[in-house]
């Protein structure tokens, strides 16, 4: 069974298509990193899943049921754009309202539990409007965690946070994904952060899903490269091009792709009269993979 199954989903705003026949599959238990540039349709997809928007066409099923089924909706938690709290009410009051809405039997215990997860126990009586952006995002996550959600939808939870806020949020996300065991759909521009927790990825572009892959598949597709520095970079590049197929000058480094042996490269450069001052073996990460994929799509 899949936690989310979307087929042919479309949504337009004033005649402009935000989603155009999107297909998406999120297996149960997955931490699904939802990636795409600004305006690609990530937030629209998440809002449609949450029932905030009405689709023009297509089908959304959550855990095998229609996404509008109250039985499945009661097990969905989301943080979309902002926490959705009343600014004049305290953190506790906002959480209490959601706990009442969900019909929780022991709301105080449950509020204490989620506040502990997001490290906000000390600030329960603080008015929401007095909270910092990082705290507000954490409260939003606490709201989403109330009532044992089976599916958690987080839209750019790290966006706009300072370094410390990002660190705390990252730790919370790791804790949620490792300990709570619910399916998580998370969109973020910070691919490096996403790479640390995601088990699956979906890459969306111009309202269409261009690729879905697991972390293992990404690992398999990730290209190995050797990056190096020499005194005469241009001369070394020319020498390397004579032997290797894919040599690029990137970020003041020479990169030789799809080569496993560092010794071979060093040996070849030595024979060509170049002394290597720095050499390192790397693997393409999610960010580089994404950039490469997007460049290819733009070229098409």
């Amino acid at each position, binding site marked *: 069974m899949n936690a989310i199954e979307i087929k042919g989903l479309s949504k337009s705003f004033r005649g402009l298509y935000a989603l155009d026949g999107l297909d998406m599959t999120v297996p149960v238990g997955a931490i699904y990193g939802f990636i795409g540039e600004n305006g690609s349709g990530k937030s629209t997809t998440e809002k449609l899943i949450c029932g905030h928007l009405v689709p023009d066409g297509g089908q959304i099923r959550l855990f095998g049921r229609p996404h509008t*089924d109250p*039985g499945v909706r009661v097990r*969905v938690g989301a943080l979309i754009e902002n926490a959705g709290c009343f600014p004049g009410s305290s953190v506790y009051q906002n959480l209490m309202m959601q706990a009442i809405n969900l019909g929780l039997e022991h709301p105080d215990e449950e509020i204490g539990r989620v506040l502990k997860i997001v490290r906000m126990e000390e600030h329960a009586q603080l008015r929401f409007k007095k909270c910092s952006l990082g705290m507000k995002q954490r409260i939003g996550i606490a709201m989403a965690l109330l009532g044992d959600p089976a599916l958690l939808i987080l839209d750019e939870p790290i966006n706009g946070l300072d370094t410390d806020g990002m660190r705390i949020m990252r730790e919370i996300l790791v804790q949620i994904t490792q300990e709570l065991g619910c399916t998580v759909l998370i969109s973020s521009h910070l691919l490096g952060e996403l790479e640390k927790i995601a088990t699956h990825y979906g890459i969306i572009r111009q309202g269409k899903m261009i690729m879905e892959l697991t972390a293992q598949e990404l690992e398999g597709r990730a290209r190995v490269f050797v990056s190096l520095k020499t005194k005469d970079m241009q001369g070394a590049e020319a020498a390397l091009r004579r032997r290797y197929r894919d040599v690029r000058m990137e970020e003041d480094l020479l990169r030789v792709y799809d080569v496993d042996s560092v010794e071979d490269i060093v040996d070849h450069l030595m024979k060509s009269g170049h002394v290597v001052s720095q050499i390192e073996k790397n693997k393409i990460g999610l960010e580089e993979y994404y950039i490469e994929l997007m460049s290819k799509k733009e070229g098409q």
Partner: protein
Amino acid sequence: MGKTLRFDSPSFGRRLKGMLGVDFYRLFHTPMYYIFLAIAAIIPAMILGTSGIPDPQTGVAATPLYTNVWHIIAAEEPLYVVSDIAEYANMDMVFIFGGIMVSIFIGHDYKSGYVKQLFTTHPKKQDYMMSKTITCAFAMACMCVTYLIGAVAAGLLTGGSFQVDPLALLCAVLGKMIMSLGWASLYTFLNIIFRKYFGVSIASSFFFGTGILIIGAAAIVGNSAWLNVFLYGSSVYACLSSTPVTVLVCLVCSVVWALVYNVLGTRILSKCDVY
């Protein structure tokens, strides 16, 4: 750790209980509700207290607006055609201020983004409409009570006449309180239509709350009983010559309009994006 994947659909009763719980919790925990209760009490007190005050220059007392304190609750007869302010200023004014209160109450759902949290989980659009209508009707009925208290207190202080048929007064107050349901449903409906425009929703609530359309219609057709079909008409019908039949008319009018507006509001919410 895996999650148990049981999805029990909450019943309509559980969903509505949850929504009502949230709305009443919010109502009782926000100062807005108490401010509007106070406004409802102050208005009749101000009108009665300032009516008939002597002119500071001539020293001659102005003619009081009301000869009987209960006229600030309702007129002797249902007066759809209004000729002076005294015929207009009565408990029906609660519904004007109630409209503004409903606009703020629902508007904050959208402004804060809380509506997203609600609709992400199990409440259906009809639950939302019903819950808002019931909560706001309760708040307006409470405003009617504080209005009554304010009127009585001011009447006692100014020494006005309290002569009235108790049953007629009871039926009039009860009728107007019952009308809160219909008015609350209208305002909820208006706020659903103009959910993206807070200012427009307040203005529209005020406009319809004044009953200006019915007053205008009455100027053409006269004091016709047909006007009781409308919310303002039935509210005016609950006057100091009311009988239990008046209460029944108010009940039918209020419930029918509440159903109509709830069905229409639910349809709009279901067909349109939440925000």
